């Protein structure tokens, strides 16, 4: 899948805390469904459902290894999303830091101007 496609589904996939935790675990290396389900107090089918959402969003892929199907991260996709949000954050932070200075230099509002 092209890294620039369907980023909306990737953002949506990241909205869930369990899925973010799964991604954090996979950032340390590939893991099977059983290994991923272990730290969570939810059933294996529920984990599989989360994995499907992450897979459909192109954030993870599965590998065939005998009877095992370990999942791993697709890093390029994570980076494209990350980069866009990082750019937005940086731009807004720089703007609002400047706005702090501009506001400090403005005369305070006159009495009666506020509602």
């Amino acid at each position, binding site marked *: 899948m092209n890294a620039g496609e369907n980023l909306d589904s990737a953002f949506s996939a990241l*909205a869930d805390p369990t899925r973010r935790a799964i991604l954090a675990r996979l950032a340390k290396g590939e893991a099977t469904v059983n290994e991923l389900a272990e730290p969570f107090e939810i059933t294996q089918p529920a984990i599989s459902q989360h994995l499907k959402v992450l897979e459909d969003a192109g954030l993870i892929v599965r590998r065939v290894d005998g009877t095992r199907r370990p999942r791993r991260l697709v890093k390029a996709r994570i980076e494209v999303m990350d980069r866009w949000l990082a750019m937005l954050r*940086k731009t807004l932070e*720089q703007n609002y830091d400047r706005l702090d200075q501009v506001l400090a230099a403005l005369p305070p509002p006159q009495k009666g101007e506020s*509602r």
Partner: protein
Amino acid sequence: MNKLELKTEGDTHVIARRRFAAPPELVYRAHTDPAIVQKWLLGPEGWTMPVCINEARPGGKIRYEWSNGKGAGFYLTGEYLELEPYSRIVHVERMHIPDATPDNHVETRFEPDGAGTLMTMRMTLPDAQTRAAMLATGMEGGMEASYARLDALV
């Protein structure tokens, strides 16, 4: 320190929230008075806004043009939909880099927070193509190598 909070909501929105020391009257003015907007809505260091049109009334036009002084530039156009001094602004905007991006619908709220203001801005998330185009503009220079690590998402 007044830290920016940034989060996605569903698959179509981004919410930015930040506190300012100044009261809502001033923060609202800083968003609607072109002479003030021109001083801060600039993005990365080195960029300026030579053209700033900001007609703060329903139906009023917005046009911001940015330049990095080295030949790179882009502009934004928009229209105001609703204004409630000094608490709420609703407008639409689009970037031209140089093709127009899909409309971004923005609601900005200013709430009193002690002597200051809590500002919450709810934006439409640009589609994948628009994000790629925005990353490709000169604005990316402002990002440096500060790509958040995956841990930062958790």
